[in-house]
């Protein structure tokens, strides 16, 4: 599904590389967690995979399915089935949430040579998914993320994910800013999307999200590289001994 090989990335025009030879493979149906301290390169990885400007790939490769991911525009990556649930969802005043979702859905369908979703079908699906991830119907008519609380923004990300049904979901610090109840709702929404043909990369600081979204594989990212890889128990180990303990051992 996703194969990252020796990826080196710097901020555009900057001297320092942030990702320094990152290698990772995610197979269909797998859920991988990437944990790491602040500044380890977690968000950079998420943005580079989604195709945001401002980064410079200086080495390595990323293959998604059988395509060279780094050659694709952000919208082409979305059409190919990649979805990034962002750490800081953007507020877009003047664009209604439901309009935006329908536009996104049809854009992806068109890119795949499919027909637009009929209006009735769209509304039915939207209501169903909104209920699933706990997005109030009122928020569907409001402008995208405008005036949403931190938790509402994160749920809105998962709603988009549920509607667009991507092959690969990247969740960047989806737990930040969520209280325990909201965390559970969001995790339920994510778990409902788990599927043998769908993979997930869950980026997080804390182990607590992984109590709800149980990963198959856990990686520790530090200083731009994967330092350790293990099963779900590695997350608990991190929680107990901290990054320093684990990384000290790895080094």
């Amino acid at each position: 599904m996703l194969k990252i090989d020796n990826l080196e990335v710097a901020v555009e025009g900057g001297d320092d590389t942030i990702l320094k030879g990152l290698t990772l493979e995610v197979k269909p149906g797998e859920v991988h967690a990437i944990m790491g301290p602040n500044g380890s390169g977690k968000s950079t990885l998420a943005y580079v995979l989604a195709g945001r400007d401002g980064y410079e790939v200086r080495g390595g490769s990323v293959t998604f399915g059988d395509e060279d991911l780094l050659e694709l525009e952000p919208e082409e990556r979305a059409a190919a089935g990649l979805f990034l649930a962002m750490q800081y969802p953007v507020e877009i005043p003047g664009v209604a949430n439901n309009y935006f979702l329908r536009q996104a859905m049809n854009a992806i369908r068109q890119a795949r040579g499919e027909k637009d979703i009929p209006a009735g079908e769209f509304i039915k699906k939207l209501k169903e998914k909104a209920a699933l991830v706990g997005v109030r119907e009122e928020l569907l008519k409001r402008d995208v993320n405008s005036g949403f609380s931190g938790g509402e923004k994160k749920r809105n990300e998962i709603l988009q994910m549920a509607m667009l049904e991507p092959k690969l979901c990247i969740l960047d610090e989806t737990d930040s800013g969520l209280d325990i109840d909201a965390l559970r709702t969001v995790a339920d929404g994510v778990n409902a999307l788990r599927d043998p043909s769908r993979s997930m990369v869950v980026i997080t600081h804390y182990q607590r999200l992984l109590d709800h979204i149980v990963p198959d594989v856990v990686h520790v990212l530090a200083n731009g590289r994967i330092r350790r890889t293990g099963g779900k128990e590695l997350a608990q180990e991190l929680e107990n001994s901290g990054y320093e303990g684990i990384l000290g051992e790895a080094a």
Partner: protein
Amino acid sequence: MNAVRNHPPVQAFHDLFSAGKTGLPGGDGPLLGLRETRFARFADAGIPSQRTEAWKFTNVARHANVPMALGGHVQIGASELSAFFCGGHLARRMIFVNGHVSRDFSHVRGLPEGVSVRVLADAVDDGEVRERIAAFDDGRSFTDLNAALMQSGAVIDVADGVHVAFPLQMLFAAVGSQRAATMNHPRLLVRLGRGAKLHLIETHAALQDGSTFTNLVSQIELGDEAELIHDRLQAGRDGSVLLSKADMRLGERSRLRQTLASLGGALVRNESTLHLDGTFADAVMNGAFMPTAREHVDNAICVHHRQPDCHSDQFYKGVMDGYGRGVFAGRIVVHEDAQRTNAFQTNNNLLLSDDAEIDSKPELEIYADDVKCSHGATCGDLDEQSLFYLRSRGIDADTARSILVYAFAGEVIERFADEGTRRLAMQHVFARLAGGGGLSGMLEG
């Protein structure tokens, strides 16, 4: 006067006026004197150059000081006109094609008592109408030119206490021709009596290629407690020019809600002077303008607060692309007696290309001491983060840009009181955006 600083009008104006003046409405008698006086003054003052403060950012002579014929009668297909019909099925409508009323397509019969809509050419037989026309004398060249050459227009009167239940649309179509550049000079007189209410839709449509020059003068009077909703959409083409001068007088506790959109044309000038002549008068003026290619839109607004306790709010948004140029010159004058004035002005702009330009010039002149006034102007580019967010959800770059541009300008477009005008404005905005085709879904709901 300013002849030294201005451009003397080309000979064609003189020839056209002497040959045609007696054939114009009232030109065979009652209005001839006025026409001659005003033409003489126009010829003497000339066409303003950019050294005139009011035209500092706009080269109007390039479009105005060229030989043009007066717009003649042309046949135009019903479908071309009906594309611009607004106001819903109850609306009454007067249609002008190149300055001539189209009696076939206009529909203003069966008006309720107290509502009168007259074609200017008929109304000038009325001495009172002639007096009103003569009374507007701001000394401006294009007002004088309009007085000299006005062919048609409308006189709308709503009696005291009458609430007009349907929108009234004034549709001005400028039809281009490959043979000659044409001009027309309509005049619009609107008077609402005490407590009267009217929803006026003003639509300017440019049809077919060719140079057209429309020089409109509007005189709008709101009696005490009257309310006017004024939706105005202008949809131009490459060769169309619209100069519009509106003189608006608001009585005590009267209300004006104006929304306008300037969408296309070589040059559009929206000049409005508001006189808040009664206490507690309240005026809101919204505007959107979107010059692209080599288009130029100049908004010149002046609000005079003459009485205490009035409120005015100007809210203008500009989107400049290509070599497009926008001007916003908004002036608020708070006169000595106008205590407790609330006057606001906002002009926000998007510059989408390196060659686009906006000149935003807010001016406050305050002679009273107890007032609340503010003005602000901003200028920026599309937000990169928002663009990425939309693209990361599968929306292509052009469509994503269009969505964000519409989200910006739409804040004004959404304020059209008339649904038909709002939808028509959206269609024209979308047609002007590279990725606008992807936005048609917005028109569905």
